């Protein structure tokens, strides 16, 4: 076990990321923050609309969209990738709805069948055309956030610019359509009676979700996107019930988990994206235990059964 954990080097883990390594770690942190914040903001609405698992489905099915777009256009251009992912995302939504509506298969099973099939198609395509596609299984699993060029090597890296613009786009969309999103997420019936087009809102959310999923895919891979979509929203949902505050808190969660995650990755010598998620899950765990309104410590204290209260509760 000892050889597994590298010796804890205070300078390497805590100080250097802010001094010597800053060009590299800065790019990682910025990218990580952009990804987690974007996903977290969109994820808030997925949580409220009970579409968390559509996030799971869309983030997986983006893969065949990417590969097919690449095979058709032959380039890895931003627009081709976005378009492919967008079509894949919308196709997932439509297929899930079709299976669910036309047969007696329940929605969860139809999600499960759809996204695994699409993802399998993607993986098979990647392995068949591995010589041509600039994607591999590792990239699918944990992204290539660690490979982002350092800041000082000739300007700002392109992925950073792309993700940053997606973040700005998402923030703008939420600001403009805040009222519509708010009403339609909490009470679709009321929203319709107020003249909000709920179908358009639904598909709009799904389209934004696909865009976010594809841009985050590059950095953190298909599966970890799910964590980034759900964790910030779930954490802030434990701490507040106001939507605006939830947004703020999920951005805070994103920033904290990114910084902690980068340190964790340095300390453990692991990949960065999973370490960010682990840090985020840790923060969620803290919120779960210590939330002022629904925290576990309230439950542990109330029954007042001696011996059952774990140490964290005191």
């Amino acid at each position: 076990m000892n050889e597994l954990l590298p010796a804890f080097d205070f300078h390497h883990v805590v100080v250097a990321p802010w001094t010597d390594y800053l060009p590299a770690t800065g790019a990682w942190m910025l990218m990580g923050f952009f990804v987690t914040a974007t996903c977290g903001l969109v994820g808030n609405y997925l949580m409220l609309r009970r579409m968390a698992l559509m996030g799971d489905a869309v983030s997986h099915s983006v893969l065949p969209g990417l590969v097919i777009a690449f095979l058709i256009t032959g380039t890895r251009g931003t627009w081709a990738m976005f378009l492919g992912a967008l079509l894949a995302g919308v196709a997932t939504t439509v297929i899930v709805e079709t299976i669910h509506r036309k047969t007696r298969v329940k929605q969860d099973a139809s999600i499960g069948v759809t996204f695994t099939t699409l993802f399998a198609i993607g993986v098979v395509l990647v392995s068949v055309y591995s010589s041509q596609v600039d994607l591999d299984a590792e990239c699918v699993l944990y992204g290539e956030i660690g490979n982002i060029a350092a800041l000082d090597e000739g300007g700002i890296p392109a992925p950073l610019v792309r993700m940053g613009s997606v973040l700005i786009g998402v923030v703008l969309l939420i600001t403009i359509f805040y009222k519509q999103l708010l009403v339609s997420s909490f009470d679709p019936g009321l929203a319709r009676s107020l003249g909000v087009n709920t179908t358009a809102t639904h598909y709009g959310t799904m389209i934004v979700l696909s865009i976010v999923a594809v841009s985050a895919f590059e950095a953190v891979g298909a599966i970890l996107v799910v964590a980034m979509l759900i964790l910030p929203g779930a954490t802030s949902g434990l701490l507040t019930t106001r939507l605006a505050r939830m947004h703020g808190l999920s951005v805070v969660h994103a920033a904290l988990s990114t910084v902690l995650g980068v340190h964790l990755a340095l300390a453990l010598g692991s990949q960065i994206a999973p370490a960010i998620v682990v840090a985020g899950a840790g923060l969620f765990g803290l919120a779960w235990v210590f939330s002022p309104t629904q925290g576990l410590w309230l439950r542990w204290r109330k029954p007042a059964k001696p011996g059952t209260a774990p140490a964290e509760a005191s």
Partner: protein
Amino acid sequence: MVSKKQLRFIFGWLALLIAPVALHAAQVSDVVETDLVEQLARFFSMRDPSLRFALIGSILLGISCGLLGGFIVVRKMALMGDALSHAVLPGVAGGFLWNMEKDPVAILVGATIAGLLGSAMVSALTRTTRIKEDAALGLVLASFFAAGLCLQTMIIQNLPSGTQSGLDKFMFGQAAALGWDDVALMSAVTLLAVVMVALFYKELLVTSFDEGFARASGLPVRWVHHGLMLLLAMSVVIALKAVGVVLVSAMLITPAAAAYLLTDRLHRLLTLAVVFGVLAASVGAFFSFVGKNLPTGPLMVLGASTVFLGAFLFGPRYGVLSKWWARRSRSGRTQRENTLKAIYHVWENEGAALEGVSLKALAEKRRATLEEIGREVNSLERHGLATVNGPMVYFTPAGRQRSAEIVRNHRLWELYLTNSANIAPDHVHDDAENIEHVLGEDVVRELERRLGYATHDPHGKAIPSVQDVHQNAGLTGEAGKRGGA
């Protein structure tokens, strides 16, 4: 267990599966550049021990995943399978760390513990917070998966033996990497799953479909749930090496969902799910063997998805195409019967003396153009219910009998609603319009008896009697002759 009809469908799908096989085989040979025929010969002669293990392993995982998948699909916990399969990853890495080698038993134990922790976490989250179940599943799935990835990348980077650990094979699966000890473990777990399901079949059945009833009859619902989770986690773990973490949930969900489209009985559903699971797994192992660089998991999943697509389209009762076809033929029949009824009405109105009915009068009655009536009558002619002769249309004996039946059904139902349900006579027509096409002979007899063999409906029209229907009286005699002439 499986009826002849179901066997027929299974063979139908086999045929369906062969189409993509042929397509794919061509592609694979392009990429791998080996002699496809030789590969096929090696596959079917099973000379390679690794192939033998791969095939046996695939069949075993098809059995255990199909069997347990059937339960999670009917219990509406399909995505619990997804969450479990991702949640076992840290356990896999932990099991490896236990004694720094790929010991299948240590990995099984570690992964099962991680899976159970994950499922317990989901229930704890939904119980103690306002987080909904779907979000809890996604949260546990991704967080555990990330923890597993962290551990795994640590092992690969920091340990000298890490690169050879083969842990990355757990991601997308490689059936060819299965060894003797893996297969032995797989058989043990599969056997355990089959025996447990057989022993506790009744408990599983009741808790799956009616939890309230199960609790009321004193069954330990919670323990059944936890036991199922344990079996599920174990079968996920044995499937990992062949299918991979990412897609093992498909082997649980897809065969069972396909079976769910085909039958209503749990034992048939489980049998079918097992058959589909084995089929999909062996097809996947086959392709991954033929094309050397292809990961097994995705191919197995695509095999299962093909089966699902077949059930989705052609399932006899719930298939989309079958339903569409049934609706189409039903609406065609209804239309023909309505035309027959209209002919009867015209014939009745114009006095039974007439031998045939003019198309023009029929068009007026149906409020349709002559062209439309022409099409309708032609359809009757195709089905042997009427004959057309110039501007006149005549019943055949079969057509006359069916038209009298329809009119009788309609008028008896109207009378029944008026007499027994106290509905005003001018409100009963629409209802009768629908029911007339589906009333069976015995129901009509019973209606007639209850109505005291009434002869007239609420609107004063004569109800054709049984004799009218079955003796080819009235119009048919002459019309039949005329039609034949």
